[in-house]
C-alpha cells in the first residue's frame, strides 16, 4: 500500500470504530455491528471485518462467516442509488421477470451489480413486502409499486440521468 492508501485506510477504520461505538440498542453482536456499518457506509470494506472482530472480541474468520452468509451484505461500494427489483413468486405472477429484463436493458447489465457509469446498483430482492402493489421495485429501500417494464425502465434511466 502507498502512504496515501494507508492513511485512507486508517481514516476508514476510525470512521468504522465510531459507527460500531454508536450502536444504541442494548444487544450488540457481530451481526448488529455489520448491519450498522453497512447502513452507514453502504458496504463492508476489509477494515469493517477487522474492526468488527476487534470490537466484538471475535475472530476475522467468524466475522467473515457471518458477513458472507447474509445476502444483504456487499463488499464493494455500491452505485449512487440502489434499485431493488422483486423477483418473488407473487410479483413473478404479475410480470416481475419482464420488469427485471427491462431494467437490465436500461442499465445495460446482464445480472445484479453496478451500471458501468456507477450510478445504479441493481439488486434482485426476494420480497419487498408490498405484494398487493406488485410488481414492486425500490430505490434505496423506498418502495414503488405497480410497475410495468416501461415504467421501471424509465425509472432506471432517470437514475442514470439518461433521456427517456
Amino acid at each position, binding site marked *: 500500500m502507498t502512504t496515501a492508501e494507508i492513511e485512507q485506510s486508517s481514516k476508514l477504520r476510525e470512521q468504522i470504530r465510531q459507527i460500531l461505538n454508536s450502536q444504541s*440498542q*442494548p*444487544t450488540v*453482536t*457481530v*451481526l*448488529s*455491528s*455489520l*448491519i450498522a456499518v453497512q*447502513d452507514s457506509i453502504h458496504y463492508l470494506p476489509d477494515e469493517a471485518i477487522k474492526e468488527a472482530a476487534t470490537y*466484538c472480541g471475535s475472530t476475522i474468520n467468524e466475522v467473515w*462467516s*457471518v458477513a*458472507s*452468509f*447474509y*445476502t*444483504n*451484505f456487499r463488499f464493494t461500494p455500491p452505485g449512487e442509488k440502489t434499485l431493488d427489483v*422483486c*423477483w*418473488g*413468486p*407473487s*410479483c*413473478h*405472477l*404479475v410480470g416481475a*421477470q*419482464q420488469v*427485471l*429484463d427491462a431494467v*437490465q436493458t436500461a442499465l445495460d447489465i446482464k*445480472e*445484479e451489480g453496478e451500471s458501468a457509469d456507477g450510478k445504479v446498483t441493481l439488486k*434482485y430482492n*426476494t*420480497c*419487498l*413486502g*408490498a*405484494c*398487493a*402493489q*406488485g410488481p*414492486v421495485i425500490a430505490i434505496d*429501500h*423506498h*418502495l*414503488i*409499486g*405497480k410497475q410495468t417494464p416501461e415504467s421501471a425502465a424509465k425509472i432506471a434511466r432517470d437514475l442514470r440521468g439518461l433521456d427517456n
Partner: protein
Amino acid sequence: MPITFEQLQARAKKRWEELTSGENAWIRVGGGTSGQAAGADAVLDAFKSSVESAGVDANVSMVSAMGLMYLEPQVDILMPNGARVFYGNVEPEEAQAIVEQHVKNGEPLISRAFAYSGGDGTAVGNLPKLASMPMIALQQRIATRNFGDTDPHDILQYIANGGYEALNRALTEMTPAEIVDEVKAAGLRGRGGAAFPAGVKWSFLAPSDAPVKYVLCNCEEGDPGAFNDKGIIENDPHTLVEGLIINGYATRSTNGYIFIRTGHELPIESARKAIAAAYEIGLLGKNILGTDFSFDMEVSLTGDSYVAGEETALMEAIEGKRSTPRFKPPFPAAAGLWQKPTNINNVKTLAYVPEIVRNGSDWFKGIGTETTSGTAIVCLSGHITYPGMYEVPMGMTIRDVLEKIGGGVSEGEYIKVLQAGGPLNGLLGEDAFDTMIDFDAMSAAGASIGSGGIIVGNETTNVVDLLRSLIAFNQFESCGKCFPCRLGNTHMLEILDRMCQNKAKSADLALLERVGTSMKAGSLCGHGQLGFNPIASALKYFGDEIKSCLNGEIAPGGVYGDGTMILPTRTRP
C-alpha cells in the same frame, strides 16, 4: 410517584377527543409499506400544503393502513358532524380540490369518494356505508382492530382505544398462571405456520426459575405473498408490544426481542418508536405500572436470510451468528437464546393476546371453528381484483375470501391456481377452493394457512413456471447446513428449468420425487423438510399439466422469454 394507568387513560382520552371532536377536520392518510409503494408519502405532503394554502384548520396525519390496498393511497376526512368520508386511489394533484371543497366548503367530493362511516345518520350523497362493503362487513378485526383509525406512532391514540387495558388488568388482577390458563382456554394456536397451542408453549417456559428468560417475537416474514406480520408492526405496533409484555409476565420472563429483517424500514421504525414510547410512560422497564414486574424489550435486526425465521436459527441470528437451525433437543424452553430458557411466537399470535386478556377466553373461543379459534389475517395478491389484507373468522371458505372479499379474478377469465401459506406450502387448484380456512382443513387439502398469504394466479398462469419461481426462492434461501436441502433444491430447480425450456425427459418426474423424499428425510428444519410441498401439491391438482411438460408440450400460458429465468447467482458459502 409514577403515573397511574388511570391518569394515562385520562390523558389519552383527552388527546383522542381533540382529534375527533370535529372542531377541526381530521385528514387521515393511510400509510404502511403498501401505502408507500402506492405513493402515500406524496399524497400526505400534498394534503399538508393544501391545508396550509387553503387557510383551514385541520389535522393531517399519516395513520395506519386499513388493508384495502387496491384503494391506496387512501385518504379519509372526519367532519364536524362525526361523518368520515373515504377517498381511494388519491393522486397528490387532487388534494387541493378535496381540501377546498370538502374541508373548506363542507361538501364532500362525492365523485371521488367510495364510502362513509359514522355521522349523525344522514347519508353522504349516494355513498355506501363503509361497514356495508363486503370487504369490511365480512371481516372480524381483532389483531387489526385499529387499522385505518390511529396513528401508529402515537401511544396515546392506542390507549384511548382500549390499549394497554389488558396489560393493566393482567398485572394488577391476574397471576401469571391465570394468564397462561386463559390463553390455553382461548384455544389460541400459533400463527407462524406450525399451529401449536400458544398457551401450552408458554406453560413450558413459565415454571423455570432461571434469573434471565427470554420471550421472542418473530417478524422475519420473508414469505413472498405475506405482509401481515410487518403489517401489524407498522400499523399498530403497540398491540404487539402489549402482547409481548403480557407474554413476558405470564411466563415470568425478563427480556423480549422483536426480530425483523434489516431493510424493512417502516416496520423497524415503528417497532423502535413503540418500544421507546412504552418505556417513556413506564409500560416497559422497571416496576411496570408500579407493580414488581420488570421487563425490557428491544428490536433485533437480522440480515437477509429466510431461514432466520426458523425458531432456533432466529436465536442464532439474535446472537449475531449465521442463522442456521440448531439440533433439537434441547428445546428453546430449556435452552434457547444464549442457552437461556426461551419462548418464541409469531407477531400475529402475540397480537391477539391483549384482546384475549381483555375480553376473556370464551369470547375468543366463540370465534372461528371448533379446532381453530379466532381469525386468519389473509393477504391477497396476484391476479385478484381487490388485493389487500383482511382479517376473517376461521371457517370462511377460500372461495368466499376470493370472490366476496377479493372480488374474483383480475385480468383474466377465472382463478386457476392459488399459492397459499408461503413458498414451502402448496399450490391449490379449483377443487380445493371450497376448503375452509382452518389449520386442519387447509393441511388436509395439501396447503397451509402458514403465513396467511394467498397468491392468486389466473388461467394464463403456467403452473410449472410458478413452481420454478417457488423452488428458485427456496434454493436461493437454503441456509446450506443440510446437504439434502442445499443440493436437493438445486436439483429440483434444474429439473424445473428443463421443463420450462421444453428439454425435460419422462424420467425427470421420478427424479423430482426422489429428491423431494431425500430432502424430507435428511433436513434439520422445515426449509428442507417441507421443500417438496409445492411440487407434491401441484401434482395433486395439476398433474396432467406437469406431465405434459415431460412429453415436450409447452403448458398453457407459456413462460417468459426463452424460458430462462432471471435469478440471483450468489450463493451462501
